[in-house]
């Protein structure tokens, strides 16, 4: 999947969403293609990837079949794309995937497997107590898990830095990038009459 493939996929979703064919929210990705392509160069097919409600790019870059993903989105499952076969889990609850990712990482260590867990979270999730519990536990037990903070400074439409009055420092062993989203929290920005 290259940058154009990613953008075209979301445009295809946008088109059917605006035609009123998807009876559920969609959370479209955009404007972070370069950063994600670079990160996914480090992620092996056998690794586990954990994501959130905005998961289309993560799924595609982890090798999810684009047609299968598109069908799930049209079914109304955009907010929770999950497949054991693809080692891909996403949750539409803030911080929801973190403890499960931690458990998979612990299982990998116990079984002495070689795969890794990659957990993508937003900047508001990074500030939660759940993240700090999971991060501390993961590092203290040397679990095979990488955290990636995708910072658009938005939780729905609430600016993270305003609610906390400032943002916490990102540890050196946590991947981090900033971007400005080019789609709204959900939908496409255009009025859709269902």
């Amino acid at each position: 999947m290259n940058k154009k493939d990613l953008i075209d996929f979301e445009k295809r979703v946008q088109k059917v969403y605006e035609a009123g064919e998807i009876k559920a929210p969609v959370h479209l990705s955009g404007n972070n293609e370069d950063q994600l392509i670079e990160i996914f160069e480090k992620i092996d097919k056998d690794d586990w990837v954990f994501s959130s409600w905005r998961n289309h790019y993560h799924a595609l870059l982890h090798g999810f079949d684009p047609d299968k993903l598109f069908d799930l989105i049209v079914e109304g499952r955009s907010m929770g794309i999950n497949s054991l076969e693809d080692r891909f889990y996403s949750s539409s609850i803030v911080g929801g995937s973190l403890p499960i990712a931690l458990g998979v990482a612990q299982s990998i260590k116990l079984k002495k497997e070689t795969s890794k867990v990659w957990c993508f979270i937003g900047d508001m999730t990074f500030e939660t107590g759940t993240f700090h519990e999971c991060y501390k536990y993961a590092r203290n037990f040397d679990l095979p898990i990488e955290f990636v903070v995708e910072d658009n400074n938005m939780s729905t439409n609430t600016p993270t830095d305003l609610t906390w009055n400032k943002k916490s420092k990102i540890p050196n062993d946590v991947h981090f990038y900033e971007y400005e989203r080019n789609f709204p929290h959900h939908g496409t920005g255009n009025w859709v009459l269902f």
Partner: protein
Amino acid sequence: MKYKDELIRSMDFLAKDERTIFIGQSVKFSGNAIFNTLESIDDSKKIETPVFEDVQMGISTGLALNGFVPITCYPRFDFLICASNQLVNHLDKIEYMSKGSMRPRVIIRTSIGPKTPLDGGPQHTADYTDVFKKMLTNINVISLEEPEDIFPAFEEALLGDRFHATLIIENGSFYNDK
């Protein structure tokens, strides 16, 4: 056999399955009634966790996604409330949300705290069985009322096909009474 003996027999049965792992606070170290049913189990089958109930439930789900069968222990029903997010929003919904590809087998043990000879009060003796039966749509909820209920409940939780996860509720008063 008596209530507590049946619990010990059930835990010994679970421990013989190489997939199982016991997780929670006080699975290795004493401090509650559930610990007293795990004493014969080797420490290599146990993960003693910090107090982070919701994370513990998520870890249990994650362990199960990769082939383990966690027996995740919450010594009081009141403490399981703190794990409700991972229990209700994730473990209960995961089969639907993965179109059936994810059926992590997790066995959740909790206990209604006794009121005699000491009354633990409103944060240590609550019984939320009915509300959890309403909230959980894909997790089997079983109350252990009599000693003869106990072994079949754990056997079904480990080997049965109908549910991927089971919440098994003990009653602390029965440890000595039945």
